[in-house]
């Protein structure tokens, strides 16, 4: 997977998989309500049970999606961590792109004018 990187797009390759295993395992465990409660009761102790690195624990403390991804986090598992704080994917998108949630939603709405063209099959010569 050594092709040119895609700008602004982390790809969850082996490099991140190896780095992020403990962090992702912790996040995966948050599927369970009992584990979410244990996390909230004592974050650090909970993270230590999974052998997370200092960088990973700092990233968890920072609530920074960019830091969590740099620490090897995969967004599918991180979503379970974000869910604890009732953050949805627009909140995460806004945080990562450095804009307000309203501005992030407005950017998504800009795409809407394509709907009619695609539904009518007019966007085909691409």
């Amino acid at each position: 997977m050594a092709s040119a990187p895609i700008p602004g797009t982390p790809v969850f390759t082996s490099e991140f998989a190896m780095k992020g295993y403990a962090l992702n395992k912790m996040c995966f465990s948050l599927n369970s309500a009992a584990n979410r409660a244990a996390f909230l009761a004592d974050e650090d102790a909970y993270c230590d049970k999974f052998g997370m690195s200092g960088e990973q624990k700092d990233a968890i403390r920072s609530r920074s999606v960019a830091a969590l991804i740099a620490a090897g986090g995969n967004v599918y598992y991180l979503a379970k961590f974000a869910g604890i704080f009732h953050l949805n994917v627009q909140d995460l998108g806004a945080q990562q792109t450095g804009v307000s949630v309203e501005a992030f939603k407005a950017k998504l709405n800009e795409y809407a004018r394509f709907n009619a063209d695609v539904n009518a099959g007019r966007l085909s010569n691409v």
Partner: protein
Amino acid sequence: MSKIMGSVATSHIPGIGNAIAKNLQQDPYWKPFFDGFIPAREWLAKNVPDVAVVVYNDHGLNFFLDKMPTFAIGAAHVYTSEDEGWGIPTVAPLAGNAALSWAIIDGVVRDEFDVTTCQEMLVDHAVTIPLQLLWPEGPPPVQIVPVAVNTVQHPLPSPARCLKFGQSIGRAIEAYAPDLKVLVISSGGLSHQLEGERAGFINPQFDALCLNALINEPEKLTGYTTLEIVELAGSQGAEILNWITGRGIMQGKSREVLRNYHIPISNTASALQILEQV
């Protein structure tokens, strides 16, 4: 012998599950999306399946990185949904058709696909939401066969491999002796990206290319590498692999009977496409 009726391909954005739970179908934000399913349900009332083969990707409910299959096939009599960690409601247990699952497994292994077989399997929103959209009134009146494609951990299977995998599943279904009518449900996409500085990326032109190609020119998509798909459709746009697999299951030519495309639902270009086998 069993017969493949056609396919319904749809996005599976988690927010849909919450919108259903809160009855927001008439809300202005949601109405253009949910209205797309009215003709889909009319089509289903005329084309009643016995079994739905649901091609989807697990989002960290049943599979973790300790055992991450490229392709997995459920072979259970019943499938349950479960807490995914961020509040989407679960649904009643879903009936499986284990005998058809095994006929498919025997067929694809004979065709040199190296599947993981799952005699017990939790199914996440990528399975439950399409079923809720098609049968909103309650438990779906079909048995299911879940087929999971890895879109999480690179290397992902190539679009070419996914199409071939689907074709092998299709052959196994058409060789299955009981007279079942089989619907393909392809779950996921279209373009979206949740992570990185490009979060919120959507590519309507590429989505249109995909929707058009899926009708009868899937080879237009099998020329891409998975990383090219990620570049064109966004990281989670790689879920188009589920649609390509699903298109492979349909043997031969198809006719598009319904298309609905709506941006945005959450961060995603949502899409619904029904193809009928001709």
